[in-house]
């Protein structure tokens, strides 16, 4: 067991990065992730790692792309409205096949929205921006898991040479829990022989990274088609091997709750109370939002009376669930309108989930 | 003796070498290359001083220049 400390989810991102061997951080202030950038500014120089406050999120994502292209573990963190600014850069990073980690501590949208929690970036994160590509998206639900997920994110990024997103939110970022600081062990990774480090050691054979598969692809021996085929083969491998979720009490369940991140905490409470009252309720907590845990949902689609998706939006992940369920059973949403207050501080509380369970049961 | 060698396949017929030659050693020829551009020919050889203006200012690096010791 490692050292135990009491930290916020935002600081756990920083500790996770240190334990993952991330050496370069670039970021720009935005609520509710400011504790993250401040953590890196404070802690990274102490241990000889590199912190830079960028001039915008457009710059920070490109700086991350550059550092990662040079072969180091690099990351940035941000929140919703600024996450939008990173989209062109993320698409380019995916096209360059450069591994890096981006954390989105979600706040409300659209626009500048609110500075409080929300889960409204689900579709943007899981679908990515322009062009045919997907981000891998991980969603922890505790401070401990946030710490470990950052390490996993770097591992998966390197394994697939791909950007990996970690989605938390204002609640996850600001709340404090104890964290057991320990390095997560993973399988060995391939050498980054593609990195742009200067060609001297390669006998002047140059490395060439670009984001124009349809224009410059031929320079690396790829056609546009072979390039996209290759990346889609990669996405298939991710879907086949990297789906992660937590499931509870599914076997006899008549209703299954589905939630991720902070709303999964609320939902877990409701599930527990429902069982205490004798209701046959199970729960699935997707940990990878992309690839989405479709198989486990599909498996129960014909058995249960209904799914209840709990997410702090007007309805985004619920569309993915509906897509899998394909009208074999009912899919309900407990969402933004079920918050206990109409303001930006409103929250979805366990009671409202429990009441919905009873209404559906 | 100066030798000006035109790589006719890289030439795009822009005429800049002819323009920049201070000694009128280059002129556009009547032949065309595979891309359909006419390319320059080196003449008036005695006048060439090897200044390299034609070669250095050719946007397509289609001119190489050599000096030979008189034998």
């Amino acid at each position, binding site marked *: 067991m490692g050292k135990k400390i009491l930290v916020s989810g935002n600081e756990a991102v920083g500790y996770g990065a240190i334990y993952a061997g991330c050496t370069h951080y670039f970021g720009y202030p935005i609520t509710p992730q400011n504790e993250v950038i401040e953590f890196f500014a404070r802690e990274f120089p102490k241990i000889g790692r590199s912190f830079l406050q960028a001039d*915008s999120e457009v710059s920070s994502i490109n700086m991350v792309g*550059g550092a990662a292209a040079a072969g180091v573990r690099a990351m940035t963190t941000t929140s919703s409205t600024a996450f939008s600014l990173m989209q062109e850069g993320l698409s380019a990073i995916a096209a360059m096949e450069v591994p890096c980690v981006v954390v989105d501590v979600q706040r409300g949208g659209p626009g500048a929205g609110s500075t409080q929690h929300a889960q409204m970036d689900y579709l943007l994160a899981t679908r990515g921006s322009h062009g045919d590509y997907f981000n891998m998206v991980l969603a922890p639900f505790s401070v401990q898991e946030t710490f470990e997920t950052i390490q996993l994110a770097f591992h998966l990024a390197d394994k697939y040479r791909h950007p990996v997103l970690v989605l938390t939110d204002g609640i996850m970022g600001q709340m404090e829990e104890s964290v057991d600081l320990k390095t997560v062990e993973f399988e060995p990774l391939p050498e980054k022989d593609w990195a*742009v480090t200067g060609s001297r050691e390669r006998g002047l054979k140059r490395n060439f990274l670009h984001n124009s598969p349809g224009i410059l692809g031929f320079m690396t021996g790829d056609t546009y088609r072979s390039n996209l085929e290759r990346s889609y083969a990669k996405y298939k491998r991710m879907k086949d091997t990297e789906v992660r979720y937590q499931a509870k009490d599914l076997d006899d369940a008549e209703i299954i709750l589905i939630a991720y991140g902070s709303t999964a905490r609320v939902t877990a409470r409701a599930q527990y109370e429902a069982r205490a009252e004798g209701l046959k309720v199970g729960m699935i907590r997707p940990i990878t939002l992309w690839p989405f845990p479709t198989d486990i949902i599909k498996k129960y689609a014909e058995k249960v009376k209904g799914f209840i998706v709990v997410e702090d939006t007007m309805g985004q992940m619920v569309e993915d669930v509906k897509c899998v369920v394909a009208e074999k059973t009912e899919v309900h949403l407990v969402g933004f309108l079920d918050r206990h207050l109409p303001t930006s501080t409103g929250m979805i509380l366990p009671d409202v989930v429990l009441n919905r369970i009873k209404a559906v049961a | 003796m100066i030798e000006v060698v035109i790589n006719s396949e890289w030439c795009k017929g822009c*005429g800049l070498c002819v323009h920049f030659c201070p000694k009128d050693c280059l002129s556009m020829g009547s032949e065309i290359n595979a891309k359909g*551009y006419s390319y320059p020919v080196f003449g008036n050889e005695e006048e060439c001083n090897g200044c390299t203006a034609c070669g250095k*200012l050719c946007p397509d690096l289609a001119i190489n220049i050599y*000096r030979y010791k008189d034998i």
Partner: protein
Amino acid sequence: MMAEADSRKVLCEPPKSRLPVESPLCPGCQHGVIGRILGEVIDELGIQGDTICIAGVGCHAMILFTTNVDFLQALHGRAPGIGTGVKRGLNGKKIVFTVQGDGDLASIGMGDIIHAAIRGEKLTVIFCNNSAYGTTGGQMAPTTLVGQSTTTSPGGRQYESAGFPVHIAELLATFPGVAYSARCAVTSLAEYAKTKKALKTAFQKQIDGVGLSIVEILSACPPSLKLNSVKAVEWIKEHMMAEFPLGEFKNVDETLPAYILKGS
């Protein structure tokens, strides 16, 4: 045979770091000349194996087809950010330069280059100013001359609505973090030599860790100007140089702040 080789002196051949491939640019495009100078400078400084080029988006970026160094293609305007990441990712130990056009650097990427200058980022910037967007078909750029006709300033750029050409070399020279700033041209052999010297100095500033270095190079784009190659070069001499004077605007061996707040 030996005797023949000994008696031959190369006066002009493509630089060693130049890949033996045809240029993909238009006839008369002076970006090609800039690429040649870059190759000569890389060869003479002996830095081919230690250098990473970040290409912008535009015809200027086609330098990536022909220059044999490690390469990274940035998004439009983002080369300074990518370059910053690479430079810092390699802990400042390698040489990183960007090649950017006037649309790339002075329009969409203006904030990026200004902030690289503010940070005194140890990068070298090759700024290919052809007073238009070449790639997309000759539209107006921030460097387009007042009165210059382009596809998006059909009657000539009107300063009343489209403002004035931006002077990047002078502008960047004002930042404390900038070690070197010059504007050059490739309109004659003499200017070629000056450009080469400026570029060498610019790289040396980076090698010496002084600060950001930039060389703005006026470049003819005949199709945008709707002139033949020779007339396009003459146009640069007559009009572009009237707006954009050549010269060195900054050359320092040390970058220092004007004031440091102590004890906070």
